[in-house]
C-alpha cells in the first residue's frame, strides 16, 4: 500500500488488514509529507509502536532515545519549544507512569505542542501482565491541565484522531491498543470532532458510554438487545475523555435515566469517573454504574480473554445492562426543564 498519496483516507479494506498502530504509523508518515515541523520520537519502541514507519521515510526527523522515557519527554518539550511538533510514541504504561512528571511538568505545564501516541493501552498487551498493562493512565493524565485525552475506538478512528490532533495547539494524549481490535467503523466518513461523543446506536432505555476497544462490544450488545429483547440502548463512543462531552452525558441522563460506562481501564479515575462527575454535578437522578478493571492488578491472559474476565466484552456488557435496567432511580420531575 502506498503511504504517500495526498489525502489518503482509510476504509474498511485497510482497517481489516491493519492494526491501530500500523494505521497510526502510516497516517503519521502521510502527515509528515505535508508538515515538515513534525518529528518522531520513541524510546526503543519504534518498531512496536509503528512510529518507525515515519522514521524510515524521514530519518532526519526521527529520534530514538533508547530505553529512557523521562529523557524522551523532556527532549520532546525542548523540541516543541523551538517550534517543532513532536509525536512521541511509547507504551501507555510508560508514557503515563515512567515519564509521568516529564509529561506533566515539561510538556503540559508549558502547554507545548507535543502529541503523545500511547500504544498498548489497557489490558491489550494481555499476556505481558500488569507490568505492561495500562489500567491507570487515563486516571493519571486526565488530571494534567492543558492536556487533551483521546481513546479511539478502532484503526479508522485512530486515523481521524491523529489527523485532528494537529489542529490543537497544545499537548494531546492519544491512547490506542496493541492491534487486533475489531473494526467499529466502515470508513472515515463519519463526524469526528475532538470533544464530541459519537452516537453509535440510538436508544431510550439506557445509555452505554464507552471508549476504545469496548465500543465494538457495546455496539454488538445493543444490537442483540434491540433484536432479541426490544430493549433500546443508546451507545455513545466517548472517544475524547478530556474535554468530555458534557452535553451528550446530560442528554443521556434526561432521555434514558440509566447510564453504564465501560472501559478497558481501572474503574477509578478514568472514563467512568469523568462521566460520574458530570452526572453528580447535574443534580439529576440517574441509575449509574461504571464497569472496567476493578481495584486490583490485572492478570496475564489473551486480550480477548481478559476483556471477557473483566466483563467489558459483549457478554459482560449484556450482563451489566441487565442489572442496571432493573434498578430503581429517583425520579425528578423537572428534568426536561433543566437539561
Amino acid at each position: 500500500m502506498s503511504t504517500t498519496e495526498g489525502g489518503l483516507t482509510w476504509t474498511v479494506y485497510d482497517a481489516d488488514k491493519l492494526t491501530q498502530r500500523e494505521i497510526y504509523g502510516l497516517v503519521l508518515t502521510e502527515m509528515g509529507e505535508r508538515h515538515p515541523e513534525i518529528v518522531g520520537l520513541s524510546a526503543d519502541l519504534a518498531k512496536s509502536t509503528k512510529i518507525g514507519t515515519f522514521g524510515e521515510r524521514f530519518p532526519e526527523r526521527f529520534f530514538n532515545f533508547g530505553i529512557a522515557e523521562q529523557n524522551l519527554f523532556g527532549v520532546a518539550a525542548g523540541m516543541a519549544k523551538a517550534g517543532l511538533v513532536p509525536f512521541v510514541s511509547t507504551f501507555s504504561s510508560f508514557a503515563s507512569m515512567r515519564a509521568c512528571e516529564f509529561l506533566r511538568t515539561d510538556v503540559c505545564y508549558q502547554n507545548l505542542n507535543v502529541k503523545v501516541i500511547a500504544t498498548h493501552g489497557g489490558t491489550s498487551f494481555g499476556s505481558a501482565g500488569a507490568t505492561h498493562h495500562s489500567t491507570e493512565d487515563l486516571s493519571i493524565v486526565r488530571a494534567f491541565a492543558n492536556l487533551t485525552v483521546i481513546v479511539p475506538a478502532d484503526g479508522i478512528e485512530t486515523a481521524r484522531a491523529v489527523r485532528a490532533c494537529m489542529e490543537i495547539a497544545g499537548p494531546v494524549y492519544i491512547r490506542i491498543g496493541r492491534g487486533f481490535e475489531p473494526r467499529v467503523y466502515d470508513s472515515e466518513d463519519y463526524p469526528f470532532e475532538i470533544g464530541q461523543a459519537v452516537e453509535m446506536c440510538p436508544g431510550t432505555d439506557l445509555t452505554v458510554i464507552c471508549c476504545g476497544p469496548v465500543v465494538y462490544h457495546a455496539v454488538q450488545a445493543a444490537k442483540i438487545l434491540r433484536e432479541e429483547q426490544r430493549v433500546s440502548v443508546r451507545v455513545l463512543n466517548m472517544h475524547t475523555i478530556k474535554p468530555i462531552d458534557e452535553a451528550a452525558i446530560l442528554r443521556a441522563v434526561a432521555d434514558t435515566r440509566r447510564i453504564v460506562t465501560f472501559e478497558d481501564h481501572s474503574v477509578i479515575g478514568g472514563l467512568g469517573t469523568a462521566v460520574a462527575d458530570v452526572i453528580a454535578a447535574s443534580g439529576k437522578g440517574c441509575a449509574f454504574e461504571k464497569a472496567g478493571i476493578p481495584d486490583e492488578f490485572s492478570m496475564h491472559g489473551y486480550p480477548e480473554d481478559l476483556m471477557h474476565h473483566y466483563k467489558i466484552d459483549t457478554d459482560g456488557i449484556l450482563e451489566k445492562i441487565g442489572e442496571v435496567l432493573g434498578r430503581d432511580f429517583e425520579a425528578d420531575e423537572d428534568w426536561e426543564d433543566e437539561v
Partner: protein
Amino acid sequence: MPLPAEERARLKRIAFEIRQQIVDVTAWSGGAHIGGALSMTDILTILYFKYLNIEPAQPDWPDRDRFVLSKGHGGVGHAVALAHRGYFPKEDLREFNATGSKLGMHLDSRKAVGVDVSTGSMGHGLSQAVGLALAARVLRKNWRTYCIVGDGESNEGSIWEAAMAAHHYKLANLTAFCDRNHMMIDGLTEEVMGLEPLAAKWTAFGWQVRSVNGHDFDELADAVEFALANADGPVMIIADTVKGKGVDFMENDPAWHYGGLGGELLAKARASLERMA
C-alpha cells in the same frame, strides 16, 4: 588566554551587582534559594553578558541562543540576571514570590520574560536542552544551547539519560555547566550521595569535559571558547564553586541552601559582599 583587563573588570562588576540584587530579593521575598544562586552567579554573568547571542528587546527572536537553568531552584539568580540584562524592569523583582507574580521561586517560561523553558523539578532541564539542541539541527539553525546543571541534581537518573542522548547525537551545539558547589539540602554531596569522580563520569558518557574555577572569569571564558571551537559533541564545564559565594556567613554552609534575610541579616550580607568584592 586571559580576558582583557577591562572586560574582566566589567564582568566582575556585573556579578557583584547581581549578587547584591540576589541578596535584596531574598530579603524582599521572604526567602530564596540564595546559596545556589550565589554559587552560579559568575556563570550566569559570563553567559548573559558575554556569550549568549540574545536580543532582550525581542525575547522570542527565533535565532537566539537558548539557556536552560536545569537547577531551576536557582530562579532567583536567573531572574536577577534577566532583569540586569534588560528583559524586564528591575522593579519587577519586588514582586518575586508575591501571589500572582510573574516571578517566583521556580521560573515559569510562560510568564517570566526571557525564560526559555520552565524548570524546577530536578533532572528535567538537561533533557529539554537536548531537545532544543536537536531542534536547531532539524531546523538547520546555528543557535546554541547552554544549560546549568546542579551537582546535587546530578543524582537524578534522567540527567544521565540526557547525557547519553547528547553524546549519541553528537550535540556540539550544546554546552553544559555543572555548578559544583559540593552541597545539597541535607549536607555535602559526597556525604549525601557521592558524585565523584564526576569529571570521569561525564567523560565516560562521551562528553568533552573541562574543570575550572567557577568564580574565575578567565577560566570560565577559556572553557566556553573550547566549547565553541569543538565540533565533535557536547561539552561539560565542571565549575568548582562556593555555595553562598560572596556572603561570608553563608559560604560553604549547607544551611544557606534556602533562607531569608530578615532583620540585621540583610545589612550584614550587603556589607559582606562589599568587603569581599
